[in-house]
Structures are given as C-alpha cells and as structure tokens.
C-alpha cells in the first residue's frame, strides 16, 4: 500500500531550457495583450467588420474549453463512478481544467471590446443567447473548479502555514480558516463535483450552438442543428486523450515512469467515444447530403477531410489496437491526433466555415493574435509546472511509508 504512487509536490529543477523558451513566448504574448488593451483590438489583430471573430475566439476560447474537458470527464470517471484506480489522473486533470478555464477567461477579456464590462452578463441576462449561457456556465464552472481544488490546498497547508516576518501574525487565523474549509468541503465536495459535470455538459454543447445563428454565413459542411451534440461528443472524446497527452509529457519532463497501467485503461475508452462522435458526424453528413461539397477541392472541403480523417478516423483505428494502447509512444501519437482533430474542428467551425456575404478579404490571424495565443498557452504550461511543485498534484511512487496524518489523503465523497 505504501509503495503505491501518491500525489506529492514535485522537487525537480524549475528552470530548464524549455522553460526559458516558454518564458520568452509568454512575455511576448503578455506584451501584445497589453498593447491591445492600450491601443485597441484593431492595433494588434486582423479582425474586421467582415470577420468579427478570429483566432482568439476559435482557438483560445472554443478549443481551450474543449481541451479542458479532461477535467469533467475524469471527475465523472473517478468521482461519480467512484473508480479509485483512476484517482492518479484526477488531480492533474483538475489542475489542467482550472488553469485552462482561467486562460479562457483571460482570452475573453483580451478579445471583448469593453473588457471592463465583463461582469455585465452576471446582471444583464439574455436567455435567448447561446453566448450568455456559455458565459454564465463558464464563470460558474470556473468557480466550481477552484472550489474542487481547495481540498488540495488544505491537504498541503493545514498545520503547515509558516509565513515569515510581518505576515507571521496571520499564520494562526489562516490555519483555522483552512481547517474550517477542510471540514466544510469534506462533506460537501461531492455537490460541487456533480455540479461541475452538469455545467460542463451544458456549456460544452452550447459552444456548438453559438455558430448556428450565423445561418447561411456558415459552410454547410459544418452548419447543422446537431452542432451542440457534436461539440459535446467531441469534448467528451478529447478529454481522456488530453489527459494521456499531458501525463506522458509530464512524466517525461519530471523524470517519472509513465503511468501506463492507468493510461492504457483510459485509452481503451477513447475508441468507442470517438466512434460515437464519428457516427453522428458522418450520419449528419449523409442526412443533410453535404458530402456533395467534398467533391470540390476548396479550403473548406480539404479542412473538413483533414479534420475527420486525421483527427477522428486514424486515431479511432489506433485506439482500438491493443499494441498502440501498450506503447507510450503510439499512445502519445494517437492522443495528439485526437487533440489536433478537435483543435481543427473548432478552427473550422469558428474561422474556416465562416464566410461573410460581402467578404473582400480573407481572414488570416495576425502576428499579434498568434503571439497572444502562443503566449497564453506558454503561460499555462509554466503555471502548471509551478503549481505541481507547490501542491500535491502529480502521483509519485513513495519510497518511505506514507505518513498517516488526518490530512494525508483526501479523495472525495468519503
């Protein structure tokens, strides 16, 4: 029992050449974001009256939310289905989702024209708007994610709050606060975990509803009334590949053995999930007879084929193969393809499929837009690396017997 892996704060070196590069990319992105706040959206983007939404909405927001889906799929598996054997992946997925949604929120702040009014949807409601639903759900879900993270904070710091110097006087009240939080959450965390899963299914699907109102401005290959279902199914399908992808990178980066036992079992579920998604996608194509558009080699048809073939069909076949599931390398490749597929799908839906009736230019993201997107992703990776050194997130095999204090292990709903 004591030899089994347990979430532990990591103590590997923080600064590596990779971290240095990420820091530079992050600084560049932050600089452009500041320029956008000072000089307006037009100063750094290629957005126009023809193309009001671009890379920031398509990738940072839409793809960002989809790729953070590991948070709710793993919570459903680990906590709702009570599969103890998957607990090793729940915390990394939770941290990814928490950071992911935080950066989605940041991207929204940068993208909306009047960022200082970001709180308006809280008090000014429009129940007809899919965007209102997405906005409100994302805000609430982000709060839920932070609450779900609190037990990790209490586990780490109860009895260990040791601020130095002028702050030392708050050590005791802070410790008391943590203990109260811990006791409260111990009995109630399951309420938040279920809420997190419900909120996720709601806004993951409503993100798909967003483009339906664009009607004929959207290419028929993507414009379908079942878009919300396709968005939800693809988000569910990309959840586990995203966890596998991260886990394999993290174990390599932190010098740990890949958790192949858990990852293979996760991988086994991806095939059927991708199959369901593909079934609806192809079924929709045949019912609406949109395959006729695939006959012309346009940007749209090429992107559609790439998205489905590279991002769904090939990884679907791979995930069904036992030898792929056993190999860290092939599992990594297959997971990367699913992630690429969902990324392409969101780009296609929000950018490629969108053709304004009076288009005179073709939208292509500016250097500034790319800088912010790349910078924010870098910042997210850095934050992940930083927080895994402070909090017990990543499961590490234990050499010495685990201490059995009250706060040693905190699962959920115990």
């Amino acid at each position, binding site marked *: 029992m004591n030899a089994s892996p347990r979430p532990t704060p990591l103590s590997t070196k923080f600064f590596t050449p990779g971290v240095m590069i990420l820091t530079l990319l992050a600084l560049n992105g932050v600089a452009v974001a500041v320029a956008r706040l000072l000089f307006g959206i037009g100063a750094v983007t290629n957005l126009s009256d023809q193309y009001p939404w671009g890379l920031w909405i398509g990738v940072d927001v839409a793809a960002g939310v989809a790729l953070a889906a590991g948070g709710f799929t793993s919570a459903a598996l680990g906590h709702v289905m009570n599969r103890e054997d998957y607990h090793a992946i729940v915390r990394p997925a939770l941290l990814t989702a928490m950071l992911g949604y935080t950066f989605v929120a940041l991207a929204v702040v940068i993208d909306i024209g009047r960022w200082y009014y970001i709180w*308006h949807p809280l008090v000014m409601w429009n129940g007809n708007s899919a965007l209102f639903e997405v906005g409100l759900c994302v805000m609430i879900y982000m709060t839920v994610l932070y609450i779900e993270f609190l037990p990790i904070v209490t586990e780490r710091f109860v009895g260990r709050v040791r601020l130095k110097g002028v702050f030392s006087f708050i050590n005791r009240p802070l410790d008391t606060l943590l203990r109260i939080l811990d006791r409260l959450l111990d009995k109630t965390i399951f309420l938040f975990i279920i809420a997190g899963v419900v909120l996720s299914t709601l806004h993951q699907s409503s993100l798909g509803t967003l483009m339906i109102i664009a009607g004929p401005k959207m290419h028929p290959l993507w414009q379908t009334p079942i878009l919300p279902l396709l968005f939800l199914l693809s988000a569910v399908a990309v959840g586990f590949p995203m966890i596998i992808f991260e886990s394999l990178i993290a174990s390599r980066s932190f010098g740990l053995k890949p958790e192949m036992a858990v990852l293979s079992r996760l991988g086994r579920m991806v095939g059927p999930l991708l199959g369901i998604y593909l079934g609806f996608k192809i079924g929709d194509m045949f019912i609406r007879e949109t395959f006729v558009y695939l006959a012309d080699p346009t940007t749209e048809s090429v992107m559609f084929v790439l998205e489905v073939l590279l991002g769904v069909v090939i990884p679907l076949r791979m995930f069904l193969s036992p030898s792929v599931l056993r190999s860290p390398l092939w599992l990594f490749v297959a997971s990367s393809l699913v992630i690429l597929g969902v990324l392409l799908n969101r780009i296609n839906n929000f950018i490629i499929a969108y053709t304004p009736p009076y288009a005179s230019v073709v939208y292509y993201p500016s250097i500034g837009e790319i800088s912010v997107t790349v910078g924010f992703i870098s910042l997210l990776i850095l934050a992940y690396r930083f927080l895994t050194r402070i909090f017990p997130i990543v499961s590490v095999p234990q050499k010495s017997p685990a201490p059995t204090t009250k706060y040693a292990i905190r699962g959920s709903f115990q």
Partner: protein
Amino acid sequence: METRRDFLRTTLITTAAASVSEAARAAPARIPSTDRMGILVDTTACVGCRSCEAACKRAHDYPNEPTADNSTIPARRRPGHDSLTVVNEYPGPERPPRPTYVKVQCMHCDFPGCESACIVGAISKKESGPVLWDGDKCIGCRYCMVACPFQIPSFEYEKALKPEIEKCDFCIRRIDDGNVPACVEVCPMEALAYGRRASLIEVAREKIRNNPDRYNDHIYGEFEAGGTSWMYLAKAEFKELEFPELGRDPMPGTSESIQHGIFAYFVPPVSLYALLGGLMWITKKRKEAEEMAE
C-alpha cells in the same frame, strides 16, 4: 402622380406618429406590433445622388460629408463607423445599361439575429420597428456581427476604450420628436417611403401590379429572415444586386429552440444532476460492499 405620392406620404407619416405613441404602451416584446413602421426603398426611383448618406451623417453628427463625385459608388462600399448608410451602384439589365443604385443600411429585422445573440441584451427590437443598440450594456463581444445575415453591425476596432457597435438606428431621436428618418426626408426622388409596414407592403404590391415592366415581382424584406422593417423594390433580381438569399425563417429560430430545449424550466440540467448524484451514491455503496467482502 406627384400629388398622390405626397398624399400617401403624409398619410403614412400621420399613421406613423400615431402608431409610435401607441407602441410606447408596449405589448410583449417578442411579438412585433402590427402597426410597426418600416421603410420602402424603390431602387428604380433612386438616381444615386447620395443625399441620404450626407443627411444620415448630419443627423448622427458624423464629421465627414461624402465627396461630390460619385466615383466611389461602384466600389461596393459597406456601412461602417464612418457612415451608417451607403449607396452602391450596379449595372442595370438594359441596353445601354442604366445603373441601379442600392442604399444599404441595417434592415431592422422583425426577429433580429443580433438581438437574440447579444450576450447582455444590449440590442432590442422596439415595438414600433427599430432595432437599437444600448451602449451602456454592450461588452463588445461582436456576436451580433456574427449573427447578422446582412453583415451590418460595425465595430470600432481602433478604439481601446468604449468602442461602439454602429449601425442605422432608424433615426430614433428624430422619430421620437415626430420627424421622419433623415434619409427619407432628404430624398429628392422620393425613393424612400416611411410608414406602417403593412401599408408599405400594400403600396409595393400596387406598384408592382401597375408597372409590371418596371418591377421584379418580389418585395425583398417582406418575408426574408422572417421579415424586415426595410423593404426593397427593384427591376433586377435581388441576387444580382447582391442581396443575400435568405429563407423565410427568422435567424434566431433554430438556436433559440435548442437553447430553450436544453434549459426547459431547468428540467434537463436538474435531472442530469440527480442522475449523476444517484450514480455516485450507487457506485459508492457498491465499492463499500466490495471492501466489506474482502
């Protein structure tokens, strides 16, 4: 002919004033009033003088007047934040070609996509016809621009603070003061008629009936996207004048029924919550039973 038109215009304006005051008493917001106002654009009467562009700028305190020469007309300009309306030129079907001029501005849909889309409800369809933008609510997300099938709302990308969504406001301030929209008032050819939308449709039908050679038998905006307050008559097919080909369904139809289906009295989310809670309880009990057995 002229006197009849004048008479018509006066009648329309009078009914307009009456119905606006009536609309102020307000019925349910989502059902357009039968007395709502509209504007009928007769492109066969327009000579492309662009007085309407200038009048619009004056009425909205825009600084720049359009240039006197019409060299920019064939450029197919779009309304933007320097001009809420523009007139574009299209070569006509006749030999030698006689150009058609098309005034472009917000169509003021009866069931606006932008209104349904707006995250904070900053865009609203007034009972009396106009679709208006509220700068105190707007967060600048530009979803209205995504939703608009006519590509009308324009955003001030160059402004860091208080960028505005700009589009034709139906001269709401002038209407409230009992005037007609600036473009209608100034038009020397009376190509624009302001009045009760229902009456305008009758007028348009009559025009088509009396001059079948002059008009294509189609009132653009009568049914497009569920109907619009601005409607057009033309000789050519509207497709040739670059009007979007839209069905009769309002833009928000599908998205709203999906939204309201997912959230029908919060039954689906609450049921899902209960289902997951039950699942969690059952799996926990089963796990405890297994542990006991070991």
